[in-house]
């Protein structure tokens, strides 16, 4: 089992997991880790979340959907652990666990926590394969940027419901949106242009709040009817 440990002062984890026969790579710098994740395949990513970056886990889930994500805390509380599990972590380890428990929990996360590496979203004739991001309309490829695809996926999660700009931004960019930032609007405008031919899909503006995706179905010889 290949494990990437992204944490400073990871000796304890390194010795516990190496003793269990795991292949461990430790990186303290997130840039180096990002490079490794692009080039190599890991079964589990163990990381220590920085207190000043609460969306780190969100970004890891978004960017590395095929790996089990395990959080390493030096000390923990029930509140913190439940927050992390609710946010999508597959397991939370802490410094009070002995080596056998650490190893068993990482193995368990690797067995059960692995998400499907590929998911396909289909909305009418629109098809998006994540995480590769290949999108097509009636099998013709659509050239969507990473941000555009993220915005479309964020809207597609709740078709027909308004998604506030701030929520879209947090999901796609992984940070809080600054008041006045037009990033979401710019990407919605580009998406509208690129989806112009996809008549059954429309992105509607909810003034002052955000956007909603409308999916319409058209029966032969009938005007399209909004179903969602």
């Amino acid at each position, binding site marked *: 089992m290949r494990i990437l440990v992204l944490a400073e002062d990871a000796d304890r984890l390194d010795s516990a997991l190496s003793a269990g026969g795991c292949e461990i790579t430790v990186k303290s710098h997130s840039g180096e880790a990002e490079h490794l994740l692009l080039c190599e395949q890991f079964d589990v990513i163990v990381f220590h979340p920085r207190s*000043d*970056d*609460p*969306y780190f886990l969100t970004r890891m889930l978004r960017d590395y959907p095929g790996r089990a994500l395990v959080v390493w805390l030096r000390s923990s509380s029930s509140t913190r652990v439940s927050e992390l599990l609710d946010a999508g972590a597959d397991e939370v380890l802490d410094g009070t666990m002995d080596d056998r428990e650490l190893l068993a929990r990482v193995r368990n996360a690797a067995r059960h926590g692995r998400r499907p590496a590929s998911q396909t979203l289909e909305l009418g004739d629109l098809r998006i394969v994540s995480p590769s991001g290949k999108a097509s309309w009636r099998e013709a490829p659509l050239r969507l940027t990473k*941000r555009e695809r993220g915005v479309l996926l964020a809207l597609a999660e709740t078709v027909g419901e308004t998604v506030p700009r701030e929520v879209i931004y947090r999901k796609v*960019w*992984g*940070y*809080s*949106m*600054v*008041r*006045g*930032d*037009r*990033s979401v*609007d*710019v*990407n919605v405008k580009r998406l509208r242009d690129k989806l112009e031919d996809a008549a059954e899909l429309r992105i509607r503006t909810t003034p002052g709040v955000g956007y909603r995706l409308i999916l319409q179905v058209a029966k032969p010889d009938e005007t399209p009817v909004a179903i969602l």
Partner: protein
Amino acid sequence: MRFSLVPRQAEFYDLFTRAGENALEAARLVQKRFSNIPDTTIGQKAVTDLEHKGDDITAEIIGLLNTQYITPLDREDIYSLASAIDTVVDYLDDASELIDIYHIESPMEQAIEQCRILVGSTEHLANALRGLRGLRGVSKQLVALKQLEDEGDAILRDAIGALFEDDKVSPRLIIQWKDIFEALEAAIDSAETAAHLIGNIVVKNS
């Protein structure tokens, strides 16, 4: 260098008018660039070209100053005002350049507001420079410019405050936009500096 005894006073006023119009054109271009991010139809080169044009006008004013025995305004006032207008365009160029340097992907409403102030300020500055010859309506333009500059200060405070309202904002975005907001404010302030110089000229010559 030879001093000319034949006065060419009108040329000074024409050059100041051209310098003001050039600053206004640059401000309008910068406004378009900030409003249309990420559209790159108007590139930085267009702004830099106007900056070079501004340099040429300033050089012409100083060149004329060095050859004239009699000048319509105090020599030091002409020199300071020409330099101040040149600085406005320099700051506009600097602010606009940051869009490319920081690879800005989307506009920010506060920056668009700052650009509105910039266009208004340079419009009043250009009008004041146009009226310099007979000192007609100049004071009114300077008062309007000062009001806009005050509005610009409030926008800057709000813009920087927005960056720090939430501690989960991207640090990269804070660095980029704090620099841009401050660069646009520097351009607004430089228009006010030029306005102060015109105000002094009005007091001396009326």
